[in-house]
C-alpha cells in the first residue's frame, strides 16, 4: 500500500496521465469495435456479393456510431488533461 502511495505521490499531474491513458483506451476500443464491424462486413460481402452496396452503407453507418462513442472517451480524456 505504501509503495502505491509513494508512486502516486511521485507522479505529479496524475490527472493528465489518467486523461491520456483514458484516451488511449478509447482508441483501443474503437480499433477493436470497428475492426469487428469490418470483419463482419467483408465476410458478408464474400457470402453474397450482390448485397455489397447495402452492406457497405450499413458498415459505414455502424462505424460512425462506434467512433462517436470512442470520441466521447477522447473528449473526457482531453477534459482531464486540460481542466
Amino acid at each position, binding site marked *: 500500500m505504501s509503495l502505491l502511495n509513494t508512486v502516486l505521490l511521485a507522479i505529479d499531474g496524475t490527472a493528465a496521465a489518467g486523461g491520456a491513458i483514458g484516451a488511449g483506451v478509447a482508441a483501443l476500443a474503437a480499433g477493436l469495435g470497428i475492426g469487428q464491424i469490418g470483419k463482419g462486413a467483408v465476410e458478408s460481402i464474400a457470402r453474397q456479393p450482390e448485397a455489397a452496396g447495402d452492406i457497405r452503407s450499413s458498415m459505414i*453507418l455502424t462505424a460512425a456510431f462506434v467512433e462517436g462513442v470512442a470520441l466521447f472517451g477522447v473528449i473526457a480524456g482531453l477534459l482531464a488533461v486540460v481542466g
Partner: protein
Amino acid sequence: MSCKRIFSFFLLVLTLSVASLPAFANEGAKEVKEGEKFNASEVIFGHISDAHEWHFFTAGDFHATLPLPVILYSPTKGVSVFSSSKFGHEGHREEYEGYRLVDENYKKELDAKGMAAADVKAIKDGSIVAADGSKVYDFSITKNVLSMFISVILLILIMTSVAKKYKKNHVMTAPSGFQNALEPIIVFVRDEVAKPNLGSKNYVRFMPLLLTVFFFIWINNMLGLFPGGANLTGNIAVTGCLALVSFLVMVFNGNKHFWGHLLNPPGVPIGVKLILVPIEIISLFIKPIALMIRLFANILAGHIIILSIVSIIFIFGKMGANPGGGFGFSVISVAFSIFMFFLELLVAAIQAFIFTNLTAVFVGQAIEEAHHHADEGGFDHAHSNEEIIL
C-alpha cells in the same frame, strides 16, 4: 487519367502543400520568442474556441484579424455596443468603458490582487467581465455567431435559387444545373431517412425539419474545415441547441400511445414497472444528449487531430538545436493531415446524416400508431377477419 499522371498530380499537390504550410500553420498569433517552447495547447485551443475577433492568419508580423462587434448588457451600465478592437491587440488588452476582456494578463492581475486561485481559474478565457465585478450579459457577435450567419445566408441562397427554378419550370422539365446536385440528396433524405422511419403518411410534415438539420450540419461541418474557419458544430452549445430542437419536436409530437408506453408500459408486472419507468424517462432525455455529444465530439476531435498534427512540426522544430527537425517532419505531417482532411470531409457528411436519421427515428417512435396484438387463437385480426385455416 493514367496511374502515372494521378501519381504525379498527387506529388505536385503534396509539394505545394508543404510550401504553403508555414503560412497556414503559423496562426499561433503569439510572438514566440527565441528559445521559448511552442505552446501547442494554446494554439490548438485558440483555433477551436469562440472569440470576439476572427483571426484568419499571421504572416510574420502581420495579423489578419477581423474585430467583431461586442454587444453587452449590464443592469448598472445599460447596453454597450462597440468593436472588439477597442480592447487592444492580443497580449496588450486594455479596459474599455469599464469592461475587460479576460486573458492570462488579466488573470495574473486578479491573482496579484489576491483573488482565490480556484476563482481565477473559473473565469473563462476570452470572456468579457466588468472591471468592478458586476453582472454582464454578453450578446456579442462572436466568431461562431458570424460564421453561423454566413452559413445561413449561404444555405438560403443555395436553396432559394434552386427552388426558384422549380417554380419557374414546375416539375415537368428535367433538372438542370445545381438542381442536379441537390435533388438526389433531397430524394435520399426523403426515401432513406424520412419515409422508412416516419411512415409514408406522415413524413411530409417533418421533411423541412430533417432537410434543414441535414444541410445546416453538413455545411457548417465543412466550413469549419477551412483554415481560418470557425469551429461552429464543434461547440457544445450549438449542438446542444440542435439536439434541443429534435427533443422538442419529439416531445410535442408524441401521441398517447407513446406516452402510455413510456409511463405505463402495458403487460408488465408492477415490480418491473417500478424499475422500467425511471429507465424509460432517463432514456427519453439521453436521446438528445447523445445526439449533442456525438456531433460535438466527432467534429471537435477531428479539428484537434488536424491541429495537433500540424503543431507537431513546430514542436519538433523547437526541440533540437536547429529547426531542421521541423522541416523534415513537415512532409509526413502534411501527408497525414491531408489524409485526416479527407476523413473529416467524410465525417462531416456522415455526422449530418446520422443526426438527421436519429431525429427521424426518435420522432417516428413518438408518432407511431398502436400496433395490433394477436388474440388467444393466434390470429392477428388487424389484417382480415377471415383467416385462412390450414
